[in-house]
């Protein structure tokens, strides 16, 4: 077997794992409903009673939908497979742990993209939001979905077979990010401390890119947003794969 056919085999494995994840974990009515409802209720919580045009909140709603959907199920896959005793069978297959992780990330990535189309269409058709730059919007959705899905997989690295432990960790880390990332209040309107903290959240750059695409109102340059999302992707991938490889023997 040549190197290229080995790579081809690994890629097919990534796709097989992603399809398995979609079938088992994502394409279930409660997960789909959760994916749409949580961002919708968060949106309502911020929009109702405030004197802001609803259209200006659409980028934030798309941002948190992407964030919550792409990173929601990923954290439970590995602990769940550890508990259900399917993980060992998977590791015994001719596929690297990196490809298994990439397959899990790919599933969250696709799920995030598909679900985020709902608030996007709602914004365009319901609130009359104009897409100013389709290219930036597409790039933003692709990079952000991959970034948040990678974050979800990183969060699943602690070697537990109890998904609720990971869900707790995931909520503790993800929920505050919504409030520091300029989702509902643009970054330039945040106090100085808030603006500094916002720099460390990938969701900040997603929201900024969405504002570029839909409102032309933005805080950072497009190139910086893209570079920061790429940097977070690399960071999450390196940490996620490293931690998962290290924690594997403790799971079995």
């Amino acid at each position, binding site marked *: 077997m040549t190197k290229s056919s080995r790579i081809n085999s690994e890629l097919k494995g990534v796709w*097989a794992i992603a399809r*398995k994840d979609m*079938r088992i974990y994502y394409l279930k009515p409660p997960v789909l409903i959760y994916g749409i409802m949580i961002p919708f209720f968060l949106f309502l919580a911020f929009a109702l009673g405030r004197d802001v045009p609803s259209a200006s909140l659409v980028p934030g709603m798309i941002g948190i939908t992407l964030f919550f959907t792409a990173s929601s199920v990923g954290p439970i896959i590995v602990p769940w497979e550890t508990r259900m*005793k*399917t993980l*060992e*069978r998977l590791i*015994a297959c*001719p596929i690297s742990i990196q490809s298994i992780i990439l397959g899990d990330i790919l599933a969250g990535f696709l799920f995030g993209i598909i679900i985020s189309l709902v608030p996007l269409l709602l914004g365009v058709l319901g609130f009359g939001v104009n897409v100013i730059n389709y290219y930036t919007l597409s790039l933003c959705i692709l990079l952000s979905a991959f970034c948040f899905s990678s974050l979800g997989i990183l969060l699943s690295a602690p070697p537990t077979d109890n998904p609720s432990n990971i869900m707790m960790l995931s909520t503790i880390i993800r929920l505050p990010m919504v409030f520091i990332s300029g989702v509902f209040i643009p970054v330039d309107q945040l106090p100085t401390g808030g603006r500094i903290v916002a720099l460390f959240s990938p969701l900040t750059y997603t929201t900024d890119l969405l504002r570029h695409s839909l409102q032309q109102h933005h805080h950072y340059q497009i190139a910086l947003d893209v570079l920061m999302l790429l940097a977070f992707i690399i960071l999450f991938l390196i940490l996620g794969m490293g931690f998962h490889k290290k924690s594997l*023997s403790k799971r079995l």
Partner: protein
Amino acid sequence: MNPAIEVENLAKSYGKLLAVDHISFQVKRGEIFGFLGPNGAGKTTTQRILTGVLEPTEGRVFVMDYDMQKGGFYAKRLMGVVPEFANVYIDLGAWENLMLMAELYGVPRQRRKERATELLEMFKLYERRNENTKYFSKGMKQRLLLCMALVHQPQILFLDEPTTGLDVQSARLIRDLVRKLNEGGVTVFLTTHNIEEANLLCDRIAVIDHGKIAAIDSPENLKKAFQSVQSVEVAFAPPFERIDLLEKLSCVNEVKKLGDKYRLYTDEPSEVVNKLTDLTRSNNLKFLTLNVLGPSLEDVFVKITEEHKGWNYDKE
């Protein structure tokens, strides 16, 4: 021909615990090799290293000529694996589980369907192929796991406790299949604590205890090597309660009361029979039963694991 499995000085530790303690052995191509040991002996850890699931702390493993640390991917393509603590995806049907495995093992699309049909029919699961496997019995799940291990027609099959907890029919089906596969040239590495299963299936057996190999040989050679665990089983009429007199008989190493019988362990059974005859005469007894028994593999196993403290029996 190179061995199917070659293990050199293999060790695995978890912190201070040395689960596998520098073991070396070979498995010949085409044989059924039993890996026998009590719970916690290091059997499953060894199998996990051999199948590339765990990395060793020390030592080297070659499977079908591939060094597992460098060419694990290629070796895995030739292996079928049924781990002890494994399950099928219960949210998928039997067919989907098989398709997933076939895809991961690189079986071409059309061949996948033919092979899945063939296996599901062979294991009597075809009629229920689209049913969610959460409704399958343990035996059905185990048969499906075996189908998943065979979907790519492996050259070597690793089975970890494949029949534990199964009904008689499922266990027999799996054993028959293992024999059939072996006749077709598949090497089988069977990890088990079921001594009778190892006795019935294996060409050779390794006994592992406290992470060390205590013995490797064919079941019959192992029994021969432990003549001291031959025994004489005797029951008297009327019932005889003087176990102390039996223990005092010369050549008797140990006496065990088994219901209404006694088992006298010895390395000279004919001498013990003579002594017992004298005993019946002097105590006005009759033999109800009198059997001379060769050492069972279970006796050998118990003897090895009880006595194995730094001692190493390796005939090869």
